[in-house]
């Protein structure tokens, strides 16, 4: 069974900034782990450490039970990564890109050619297979790299923002593919599309300033939050008594309130009386993300004020 166990992973870059602050979690079995977080939260740092590209400053992680500080070579036999800023090499074609990567994994030339064609086909790249990467669109180049690692047979795959730059149809195609692959693979991905995490992830990690704020299934994340309902007031701002409720204004500029079931119906009735347009929904990952990150920033500021 595949597994990733992080034990107090910390990273301080030599240029000073603390990018990862004792991150611990455990993911077992096949499936998708999605890491979300704002720019600079530490997602790439975490993924690069797990892919044995970067040494942690403190702590360690076990990939399928193997310590990544002590035995990176063993781990590299069954992992593969598409780095955030990776680009398909300009002067190669998609097929040459995949073939050469497979050879880096030790596979022979003729076998590599067959696998490359299969994998590019899976990502609907048959037409581009022999064009120069340089001539492909940005999203297509990205897909070539995804095809590259998926061809490898590596059982644990790291994808750092795989769908950034993909059009909505390609993105949903990739989601479909990942959804079928997750039965056989352990895939760790980072994303800024919360819908992506909602749809694909078996577990979601939320990061902020190097810390892992939450790590759980979407359902558990929902359960842990004391507020289950989200009320969005449209087009106006209303004064509300924030008893058993919290405001997370800002997602789309509308006033938004997270609250529990009881209070939700009270507020709704009040809003109906006032004739205000509003909608009530179960909280989404976006709401949870906003809530946790905002809370973490407020706490951080309070800590700083105290010291």
């Amino acid at each position, binding site marked *: 069974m595949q597994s990733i166990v992080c034990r107090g992973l910390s990273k301080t870059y*030599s240029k000073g900034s603390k990018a990862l602050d004792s991150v611990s979690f455990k993911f077992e079995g096949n499936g998708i782990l999605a890491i979300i977080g704002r720019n600079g939260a530490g997602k790439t740092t975490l993924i*690069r450490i797990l*892919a*044995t*590209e*970067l*040494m942690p400053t403190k702590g360690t992680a076990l990939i399928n039970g193997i310590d990544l500080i002590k035995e*990176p*070579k063993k781990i*590299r*036999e069954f*992992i*593969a*990564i*598409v*780095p955030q*800023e*990776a*680009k*398909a*090499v*300009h*002067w*190669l*074609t998609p097929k*040459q890109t995949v*073939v*050469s*990567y497979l*050879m*880096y*994994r*030790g*596979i*022979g*030339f003729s076998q590599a050619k067959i696998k490359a064609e299969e994998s590019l086909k899976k990502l609907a790249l048959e037409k581009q297979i022999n064009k*120069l990467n340089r001539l492909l669109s940005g999203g297509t180049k990205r897909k070539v790299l995804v095809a*590259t*690692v998926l061809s*490898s047979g590596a059982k644990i795959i*790291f994808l750092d923002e795989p769908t950034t730059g993909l059009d909505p149809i390609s993105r949903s195609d990739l989601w479909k593919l990942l959804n079928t692959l997750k039965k056989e693979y352990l895939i760790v991905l980072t994303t800024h599309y919360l819908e992506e995490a909602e749809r694909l992830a078996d577990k979601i990690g939320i990061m902020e300033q190097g810390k892992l704020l939450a790590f759980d299934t979407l359902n558990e994340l929902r359960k842990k939050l004391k507020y289950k309902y989200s009320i969005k007031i449209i087009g106006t701002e209303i004064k509300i008594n924030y008893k058993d409720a919290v405001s997370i204004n800002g997602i789309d500029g509308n006033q938004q309130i997270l609250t529990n079931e009881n209070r939700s119906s009270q507020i709704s009735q009040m809003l109906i009386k006032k004739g205000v347009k509003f909608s009530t929904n179960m909280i989404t990952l976006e709401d949870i993300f906003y809530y946790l990150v905002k809370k973490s920033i407020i706490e951080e500021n309070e800590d700083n004020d105290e010291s």
Partner: protein
Amino acid sequence: MRTMMNRKSLNQIMASVLVNSIYAMKNYPIMLINTLLAPLSILVIIVFISRGALIGVGIEGAFIMAMISSGIGLQSDLSHLKNDFKLQDMVVSSPTSAVNYMVGMGVSELVYAIPILVILSIMAAIFLHPTLIQTLILIAVMTIVYIFSIALGFFFSTVTTDVMQSWGFTGIISTLLSTIPPVYYLITYIPLPFRYIAYISPTTYAAEIVQSSLGFLSITQTNLIIDWIVIITVTVIVLVIAIKKSMWREV
């Protein structure tokens, strides 16, 4: 089991050769002309200036320079692949080791050198008529210079973080290995106090060995031995540093 291991390594080495030279030449044939141009143009200038007198030394110099260009080319090719495409990151997380990556990329630079080496060999056969011993000495020195420059290029490429920086290193390596040392001419042409500057560069020692073996330069037996010791020692040191200290997994 053993042969399986070797086959795997061979595939990994071949991957670099495909990426960095064979596919590159296949898709951009202009690369071929480029590899011929630089050494040949210097050779032509030397021959013109010396009115043909230095053609032998020039050919010998071009042989050595072809090897040095490999190291310089490797350094910038690797920085490009590492920093602009993040290929190295993908390879680090794969079963390919730093050594196999270095060897593969090294061989890929040698592939670029094949056309010029063929031309120079023909010219050598016509103008130099080397004996077997002379040929073997030339090949031995070329091999050492090649390993030295590849190791140096690999080391520098792994510590660069962007291509701008790598151009800085390219400048340093090429001045040290190809501008300062008297490769295309004899060291005796340099006035004495300045000659010591030339000895900073390992290439100078390599050139001395070949120039003396071909009879262009007369040096004492002791000096010849020192030359060999210096180039072999420096190469071993650089190679060890490249393998041990290059930044494969970032810290």
